[in-house]
């Protein structure tokens, strides 16, 4: 136990206080929402009416009325999860500069949002769609393609929720608990929080989460360098852990291609996930989405600072093989216990908010696209969300954490294969549903096949002629998918598109 600190009761009390208050606030949101929003809700132009504007739309999309601020917190909130706070520094702790690919990834995603997402929002709003699969059914009239996209989303989001539960478990472990009881408590609180509040719960508690995370991160990135001798010293220490290839370069030549392709494939995948789409579709207008693309990059600064925590841990002398414990140990070692408890609560709340949005996004897929129509309704959505969370809980309980991370990698490869169906539908190119379905099948099989053959690695060695580089597996599968989609579309063109090209 060299250099590994432990928590005391004060940390636990502070943790329970902040975590508990957020859960109660989120679960009871329908009771206090009225005073919070003042008289605004009673305005005659309220958009809740309209396409199926009953309870399901309210529970699953918050009535599509979230303005710029709530959308900012909601989209940013489910994009930067507890797992980010735990896993990104863990990766940087282990591999150094290479682990920073999350930084370019979370920058290039915003131009993409700005151009693509307002179009999706318009189509979804005009057609009353709640999921990506809804939009695809309406445009291509293909039940098979709808199911392909719905199942991809559902399978990809499950391990993501599991990682959030692992995030909560990590901080609870750092507080000195072991066994599975803390995980069960985390699960029950998540379930209550989502069941009662629907999408309003994460939307109105996302700001609590962000403020807590900002306080914890800003304290860490200002105070830790002062205690540890400055940023220059930090980079020097890191260079002794992960040696630089030479005096001037930061990464080895062979790391450049995986760095760029992982950043690109992560950015493309990010907004195909059902939960991020849920956040976007809940916005009040297409312009709200565009405006958000301007302000959302602020989150990336925070992400970059969080990544630096992985380097600070080396300076602080934290020596562990369990890299996911790096951030909790860092807080315990360098801060008073009450502040460590607060930071842990921030991470736990940071898991709760996105996990709720993910469960709701998955529930929307189940009720809208997979189950027969007669099961539509809020109660079904609630039960579906609960089922998804139970699935995630089983993932955590019966698979080890390493396997959950591998599953999330597979999830990324799977969700990337829905890119042509969702995004090419917005362009003037006439791809057919037969083409997209074939592309989806081939891309998914190729992607999963490569992952299987490589032993679940995110990158694959691509050798063409004398050229050989590591390239993101998801990106390779996506390129195959697009080529197949294009070729098959030429052979079997689409007849009578259901919706005119926009």
């Amino acid at each position: 136990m060299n250099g590994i600190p432990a928590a005391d009761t004060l940390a636990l009390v502070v943790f329970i206080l902040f975590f508990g208050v957020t859960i109660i606030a989120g679960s009871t949101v329908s009771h206090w929402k009225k005073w919070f929003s003042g008289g605004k809700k009673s305005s005659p132009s309220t958009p809740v009416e309209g396409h199926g504007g009953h309870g399901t739309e309210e529970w699953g999309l918050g009535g599509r009325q979230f303005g710029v601020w709530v959308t900012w917190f909601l989209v940013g909130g489910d994009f930067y999860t507890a797992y980010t706070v735990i896993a990104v520094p863990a990766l940087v702790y282990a591999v150094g500069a290479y682990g920073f690919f999350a930084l370019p990834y979370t920058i290039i995603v915003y131009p993409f949002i700005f151009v693509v997402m307002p179009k999706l929002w318009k189509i979804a709003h005009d057609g009353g769609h709640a999921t990506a699969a809804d939009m695809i059914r309406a445009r291509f009239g293909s039940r098979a393609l709808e199911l392909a996209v719905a199942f991809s989303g559902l399978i990809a989001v499950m391990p993501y929720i599991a990682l959030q539960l692992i995030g909560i478990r990590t901080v609870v472990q750092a507080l000195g608990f072991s066994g599975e009881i803390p995980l069960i408590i985390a699960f029950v609180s998540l379930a209550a929080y989502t069941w009662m509040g629907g999408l309003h719960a994460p939307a109105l508690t996302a700001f609590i989460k962000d403020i807590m995370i900002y306080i914890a991160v800003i304290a860490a990135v200002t105070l830790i360098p002062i205690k540890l001798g400055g940023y220059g010293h930090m980079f020097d220490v890191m260079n002794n852990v992960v040696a630089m290839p030479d005096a001037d370069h930061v990464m080895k030549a062979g790391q450049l291609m995986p760095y760029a392709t992982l950043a690109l494939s992560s950015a493309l995948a990010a907004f195909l996930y059902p939960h991020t789409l849920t956040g976007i579709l809940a916005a009040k207008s297409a312009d709200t989405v565009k405006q958000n693309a301007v302000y959302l990059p602020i989150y990336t600064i925070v992400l970059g600072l969080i990544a630096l925590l992985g380097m600070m841990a080396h300076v602080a002398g934290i020596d562990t093989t369990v890299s996911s414990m790096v951030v909790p140990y860092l807080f315990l070692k360098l801060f008073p216990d009450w502040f460590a408890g607060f930071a842990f609560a921030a991470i736990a709340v940071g898991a709760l908010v996105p996990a709720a949005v993910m469960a709701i996004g998955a529930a929307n897929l189940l009720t809208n696209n997979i189950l027969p129509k007669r099961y539509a309704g809020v109660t079904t959505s609630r039960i579906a969300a609960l089922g998804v969370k139970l699935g995630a809980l089983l993932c955590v309980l019966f698979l080890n954490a390493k396997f959950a991370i591998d599953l999330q990698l597979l999830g990324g490869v799977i969700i990337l294969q829905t890119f042509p169906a969702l995004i090419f539908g917005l362009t003037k190119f006439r791809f057919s549903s037969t083409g997209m379905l074939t592309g989806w099948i081939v891309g998914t099989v190729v992607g999963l096949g490569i992952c299987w053959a490589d032993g679940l690695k995110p990158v694959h060695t691509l050798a063409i002629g004398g050229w050989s580089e590591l390239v993101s597996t998801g990106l390779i599968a996506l390129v195959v998918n697009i080529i197949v989609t294009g070729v098959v579309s030429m052979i079997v063109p689409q007849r009578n598109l259901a919706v005119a090209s926009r």
Partner: protein
Amino acid sequence: MKIFNILLIAPFVGLLWVPFYNHQTPMLLGFPFFYWYQFAWVPVTSVLIWLAWKKGAQS
């Protein structure tokens, strides 16, 4: 006019061309070039998107 959307290609070029910023120097406030260059793209991207949003809405 959507002409301002061309600005949005810049972050992709600037960040996916990794050999350009895989360097230690010039340092800034103790940060090697590799790190501060990528951080610098955050406000730049914000401004570019803001321009595309404002100008796109005007015309």
